[in-house]
Structures are given as structure tokens and as C-alpha cells.
């Protein structure tokens, strides 16, 4: 398979993840969609690494995974803190800064 197929698939997954971030209300699901976008980026990185015949893209994908893990830890902790204060995981209910 040519790397362009993988890149096209990663574009599709990225866009689907973006739609999920835009339309979903549950903060956990929004997080999952962000993870989907990061995974799509990783797929593109690996495809580019294969296209160039070196491993730099794979190293970058590895770093993306590490950063995503850290992001999930902090993000879910924030979510739990918000849920404790407001008894809701919906992104619409965290609107104290609005007023």
C-alpha cells in the first residue's frame, strides 16, 4: 500500500474526531475524540516515516503518544474536579466564566 492511502485514512479519522469534539456534549467523549485526532496524526507520522525510509517519524509518533498520555491524566483529573463541584460532565454546565 502506498503511504498516501494511510495519509488519506488519517485525514478521514482526524476530521471525524474534529466533528466529535464540535458536536458532543459529554466532556469524556470530547476527550476521546481528541485522542482519536492524535491517533490519526500518529498514523500520518508513521506513513511519512515509511515514505522517507527513516525512523524519525516513528520517534515523533512515540513522543505524541507520551504527550497524549500526560494530557489524558491531567484532563481527566480536571474533569473529575469539575464533576465534583458541579455534579455534571457536560461541557455546557461549566459556564461560570460566562457571566
Amino acid at each position: 500500500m502506498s503511504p498516501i492511502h494511510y495519509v488519506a485514512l488519517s485525514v478521514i479519522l482526524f476530521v471525524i474526531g474534529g466533528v466529535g469534539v464540535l458536536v458532543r456534549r459529554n466532556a469524556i467523549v470530547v476527550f476521546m475524540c481528541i485522542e482519536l485526532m492524535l491517533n490519526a496524526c500518529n498514523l500520518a507520522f508513521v506513513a511519512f516515516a515509511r515514505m522517507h525510509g527513516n525512523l524519525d517519524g516513528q520517534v515523533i509518533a512515540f513522543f505524541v503518544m507520551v504527550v497524549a498520555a500526560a494530557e489524558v491524566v491531567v484532563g481527566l483529573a480536571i474533569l473529575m474536579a469539575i464533576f465534583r463541584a458541579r455534579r455534571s460532565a457536560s461541557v455546557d454546565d461549566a459556564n461560570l466564566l460566562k457571566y
Partner: protein
Amino acid sequence: MSHILAATPSGTNTDSIAVETVFWILAFISVGAALAMILVRRAVHCAIMLAVVMLCLATMYAMQGAPFLAFVQIIVYTGAVLMLFLFVVMLIGISSSDSVVETIKGQRAAAGLAAIGLFLILILSIGHAAIGPAARTTAANNVDNINLTGLARLIFTTYVFPFEVTGALLITAAVGAMVLAHRERTAPKPTQRDLAARRLVSGQLAPDPAPGVYALHDAADRPALLPDGSTSELSVSQTLAPRDPNEETPPVRPELPAPAVTEAES
């Protein structure tokens, strides 16, 4: 193991029919699962769909000569990150589903338009980019023709500074998560003496009775039977008590009388 970890000599021989078939199957499964992920209502189902996508991507990494990333994807993403997601889903409420009410008027349509625009831009840009066929992995990158060794050499030479920064990031994230999860105690912690005094005042010295264990049903949400045949509400945990019995686990013995007499009253 070496045949898995060895970097596949990408190029002509990997473009076989089998690889192509596997790619298309995985592509359809992953896109379908991703679509299902943004369409299903419950957060748990979303997590399962995300697991499907991640496993498909792991297989694709393995097909593209990145076996180490494939393993890391399965271990870190589907193993750790998704379990973390599931933990939080369980904490927040397994049955919490999204509301379908649009809080901002026309938001879905706008999101759809934005998605189409983003998709067109990205597809056009990769159409314009010169994405050539897969190059043969150079021997300098794959030490002993093993993907893992080549990656390790790159991480600890060229990318050693980002690697160190990643360590700092992980420590910061761990500390941040601990700070966010920490809760200040508003009331002093009750000592054993306080608990004993509270128990004396409450009038029930003995611990709560154990939940019912029947021949047909052995579950913690079944109340215990009292000697007179009535059920004891005290025996069911407060967390389980408000559960609707008609929801998922119908009572095995519906002929039991309603818990009119509880132990506290008798």
C-alpha cells in the same frame, strides 16, 4: 520475536494482495468505528469504539514497519489510556448519556460545514503534496535490521533533549493530577471514639446485617430475610438501595412482601 520486531523491508514485496486486503478491511472498520464513536449516545460505547479504532491503527503500524509503535499503541493506548477513560466513566456514572438538545442554535450544521471544509483542505493539501511510494528503510536507521534498536538509537542521540523534556512533562502531569484530585477535608476526620459515640447514639450497636443469600439468588443487592419473613432494608448497601429493581436485575422472588418491618423498628 525477532521476525516481528525486524523491520519489514518496505517497498515492492509488501504491496501484495494480502496487505492491500488487510488495509482496506482495517480502514473500513476504523472509519466505521470512528463514526459510531461520535454517533452513539453512551460514553462507554464510545470508549469501546475508540478501542476498536486504536487496535486497527496498531495493526496498521505493524504493517508499516513500526512494530514497536504497534506494541506501544496496544499497551499504552488500549491498555492504559482507555482503562483510565473507563475508570472516569464509571466514577461519573455509567448511564450518563449525552443530551440531544442543541444548546447553540445551528451548531451541528456549522460543525458539519466546518468538517467538510477541513476535510477538503486536508485532502487537497495531501493531493498537492508529493507523497511518493514507500522508500526502503536505510540500514543506518535500522541497526541490525531491527526497528527497536534503530528507534532507541534515535531517541538517545538525536532526540535526547525532547526525551528529557518528556520526562519533565510526565512528572509535571503526575503532580498536576495529584493536585487536582486532592480534596481538602472540610471537617476533621472522625476518630474511633467519635464513631463509637455516634453508634451508641444511633441505637444500633451491632453492624448491619449481611445481604440476603438465597438458593436462587446470591447478590449484594438482595435484602436479608428476617425471622418473620419480612425483608430487612438495613442489609442492603446505601449505594445499591436506590437502584431501580426493574431496570436490569429483576428480583428473583417477587412474591416477597414489601419491607414493612425493618430491624430498626422491631
